[in-house]
């Protein structure tokens, strides 16, 4: 346990000081969170009863700290919730396997029973397989699409008529080991998913970018970069307009990268977006987080781009890995889910220091600099989400979220602090 605590502390420190160290993007954060939780789970001793509950408590305890360390980095909370969901599901599937023929309800020894469905539950293998290309069973889409073969197993499988009590007690040790094993297996899948999410998204590029189109983007996002490059590799020829993304000017970096890969690139100021939008065929941008209502928390300036796109009926496409899907609803998003950064990105302190001399005048500051990191783009302005599982409509996001998270885990923070 002390090792884990050290790891947790280190990661907490990184999260807190993410700005100073300049390490994180939400992708890297998501990955590191998953890896950290994996080691938390693997180090966690599991009691004989309530194994799942023990695991869930452990993950929740760590997760709470992580979320508190940097509440704005929503990816952390997303991954914690997904891990919790995985534990619940694995436990549920194990229980269903153990108690064949019985319904879900008699599973009394864990908290997983409140899981959203009385639908058939997948086994670990099935979950892993399913999560690769498609969605969990309860979604309409999955039902319509052809299910992987293995999905059939848990629903119908009945492992015989051994009496419950006996098998349970005999099974205990193997089951606990199995639960942990399965969870870690599923976590590895999750990490793999996060690792490959860029490629998964980029694979769909050719379907969306057509010959001789003009694409507009703002700021910089690795997902967007790979998406564009994938289209380029498929011999599509198109042009990219990049709004520079003041005040951090990450668009400059993106322009550099794109030019290095031989793409025709035009760099414009943010304020020129409205002037250029009529020549644009499609807006493709990255996101910081996708909220449950289909709204997007995105780098500052994107709301303006989205409005411009809507005005000229240009499709506004948001690329987001599934780790960016956040099960929360945005209340007061401009303030609560935003991060106000230092005014020094806008102003030179030395030059403006006389405006902040509180010794003279009334002593109250007259100059107030607001430097938000994010914009909130409401769902009605988004035409399409492209995630690693395919393209989705904003109104469909809540279903996606129901697949990835269980309702119990939505609130992580406000619980009374657990003893750890």
């Amino acid at each position, binding site marked *: 346990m002390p090792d884990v605590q050290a790891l947790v502390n280190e990661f907490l420190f990184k999260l807190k000081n993410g700005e100073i160290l300049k390490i994180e993007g939400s992708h890297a954060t998501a990955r590191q969170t998953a890896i950290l939780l994996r080691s938390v789970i693997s180090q966690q001793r599991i009691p004989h009863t309530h194994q799942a509950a023990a695991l869930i408590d452990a993950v929740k305890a760590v997760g709470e700290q992580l979320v508190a360390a940097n509440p704005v980095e929503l990816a952390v909370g997303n991954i914690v919730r997904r891990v919790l969901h995985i534990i619940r599901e694995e436990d549920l599937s194990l229980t269903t396997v153990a108690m064949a023929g019985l319904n879900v309800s008699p599973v009394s020894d864990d908290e997983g029973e409140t899981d959203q469905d009385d639908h058939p539950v997948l086994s670990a293998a099935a979950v892993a397989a399913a999560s690769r290309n498609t969605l969990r069973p309860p979604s309409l889409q999955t039902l319509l699409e052809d299910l992987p073969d293995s999905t059939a197993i848990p629903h119908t499988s009945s492992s015989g008529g051994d009496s419950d009590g006996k098998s349970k007690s005999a099974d205990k040790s193997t089951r606990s080991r199995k639960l942990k094993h399965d969870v870690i297996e599923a976590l590895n899948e999750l990490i793999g998913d996060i690792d490959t999410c860029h490629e998964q998204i980029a694979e769909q590029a050719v379907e969306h970018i057509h010959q001789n189109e003009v694409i507009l983007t703002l700021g*910089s996002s*690795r997902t967007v970069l790979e998406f564009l490059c994938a289209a380029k590799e498929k011999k599509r020829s198109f042009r990219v307009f990049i709004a520079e993304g003041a005040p951090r000017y990450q668009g400059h970096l993106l322009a550099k*990268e794109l030019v290095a890969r031989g793409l025709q690139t035009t760099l414009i100021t943010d304020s020129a977006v409205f002037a250029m939008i009529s020549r644009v065929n499609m807006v493709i941008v990255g996101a910081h987080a996708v909220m449950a209502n289909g709204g997007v928390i995105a780098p500052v300036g994107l709301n303006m781009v989205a409005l411009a796109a809507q005005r000229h009926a240009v499709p506004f496409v948001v690329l987001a890995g599934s780790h960016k899907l956040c099960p929360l609803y945005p209340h007061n998003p401009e303030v609560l889910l935003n991060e*106000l950064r230092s005014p020094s990105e806008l102003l030179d302190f030395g030059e403006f*220091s006389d405006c902040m001399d509180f010794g003279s005048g009334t002593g109250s500051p007259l100059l107030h600099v607001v430097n938000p990191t994010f914009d909130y783009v409401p769902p009605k302005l988004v035409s399409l989400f492209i995630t690693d599982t395919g393209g989705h409509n904003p109104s469909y996001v809540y279903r996606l979220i129901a697949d990835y998270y269980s309702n119990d885990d939505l609130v992580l923070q406000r619980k009374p602090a657990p003893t750890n």
Partner: protein
Amino acid sequence: MGAPKKAPARAVSDDPEDLASVPLQAVLLADSFATRFRPITLERPKVLLPLVNLPMIEYTLAWLESAGVEEVFLFCCAHAKQVISYLENSQWYAQPKFKVTTIESHNSVSAGDALRLIYERNVIHGDFVLISGDTLSNMSLMRALQEHKERKKKDSNAVMTMVIQRSKPSPITQQSRLGTDGLFMAIDPTTKQLLYYEENTNHLKGTLSIDKMLLVDNSSITLRNDIQDCYIDICSPEVLSLFTDNFDYQHLRRHFMKGLLVDDIMGYKIFTHEIHSSYAARVDNYRGYDTISKDIIQRWTYPLVPDVLSLGNSATNLERQGMYRAFEIGQSRSAQIGPHTVIGTNTTIGSNTKITNSVVGKNCAIGSNVLIEGSYVWDNVTIEDGCELRHAIVCDGVIMKSGSVLKPGVVLSFKVVIGQNFVVPPYSKVSLLKQPTKQDSDEELEYADNDSDTLDPATRTMDKLNGDSSLEFSEMQDHVSSELGYGGAGYIWSICEGSHEEEWRHSVAPIPPEKVAEITQVIEDDLELVSQDSNAPASSGELKPDTQINAEDDAVYFEKEVEATFLRAVNENVEVDHVILEVNSLRLSYNMQAADCAGAIFHSMMKLALDATHSSQNELLRNVHETVNTWQKLLKSYLPGKDEEIEVILKFEEICLESVRELSPLFTQILHLLYEKDIITEEAIEDWESEKKDADEADRVFVKQAEIFLKWLREAEEDDEEDDE
């Protein structure tokens, strides 16, 4: 998000290789060795005073940790126990990769002593960061450190890199935003070497003298007064041994830096590192406390801001217009909480209360109809209904009874009780402790009683108070109930002499308008003086464009100065050579010509002659004779040519006409005398005459008077010419 990791990541990855060999160390002085924050610092060390609801040392440690420092030696002296027990209860001892070691001392009275002690401990092995516990910053150390190391490689005498930041001083008070005195630096623009460092520039009245060797030795030099010293220094280990070798070094800047820059014995050099996009500042006084608090609220110190940096469970929310509110507060619906305000956890606020530009700590109870404006209210404070606070600092546990008023600049120390409807006058400092009666006049020594070993009586009382003190407390309450209204407890500290005038400079309150007007007036006067005093190039930037108008006045001043010099010379029998020197320097500083000097000296001589006792014209003439005899050498030294001589004659005329009418009948005689003494040549007299030819009758009075003399002169000349033939 996430894409542009490459560039910074590479920059970071390079450095650790360099730094890996020696862990980066820091020396944190958790004692300011100053008394600016009295009376508060009598009861709690400065580094533990809350700055926007977090002890100052939290900011310093958080920065050191995030900047990659791995080992911190925390030097504590005053109230060392409090600092140590605070750290024990904090998270800092438990951090991996960030080791905090405390060094306790009871007899250090200055930063110099502290560094000497650390040198004795022999714990510093490489370059280290020297910082005091009241400094906060968000700068990245990497660049500064790298620069320092590279310089050190090239030149082993580069022992220190100090961090500076641009910040304009206030045009009115000449002090910086942080309330410190104006700072003047000379820096070599190419190497960034610090060549000159002068604090207190506002006492110098706009003039500054720099050793001319600075200009000789350096091909280029930048003089700057818009610099703020961040008090973050990157030092080589030599710095510690320097302190040990020079045991009289006490103050880091005043002694150590001066020693290195001025004495220049060891050839050690100090360099500067200017930060542009990040923030660094030190809380030096109440004004700085106010300014830095506002900077934090305005997020210049990001990520060291209340909503990111929160202790324990007290999460804070940032809302619109720079409002930070903890989650659990009880706020009445009708309370107005204005912009740029921080409210701590478990604080309750009554109805119709108005709070703007203020910081309120944890567990405070604020009644209704209270007005809090620009104030800093710490933890567990009770403010009853109808109180008014403007630009005040209110420490932990203070109780303000209903209707009491704090005027701007008031500081209430711990647990003071203000009686009902009592109005605390502006700039007063109130404490439960009596003001130490014995005030060391020398500021250098004042911190002696900051030391917990040599407790002065007041501090001892405090210790008792902290223990079980109900008895003494009530006793005290009886004593002072009159001083702070009915039911009040505490002493109003009398403002000690000398600093009286400075109170407004360093308080949290903005400078009152009448003071501003006063200073502006003084500055204008100063400017005039400066322009009269000198046309020295250093201050020429501040000169008003209308210097020409002042030229007249200048001449008058100059004449007076010369006269004073001359009279002193007469009275004290100063040698003529010395007088010449003095007059020369006057001439340079007023930018005058030799002719002006001659005129002025002649004027003084005549005055002297006149002032000597005389009853008749003859006696007066004799006086003039004597004076001219004695001082002819002086006068002659300013008469290199004809023009100057003419000037003297013109001056003489002027004197006779205006100031000293008594001399006018003697004009011809004196002129003759001057001619005889070879002070004035005949050519000069002739030129004077010809110059006057076209003038008015009035102007020609003296020419007429001297007609006989002139005639004689001309004849003599002709005779001479004849003789020559």
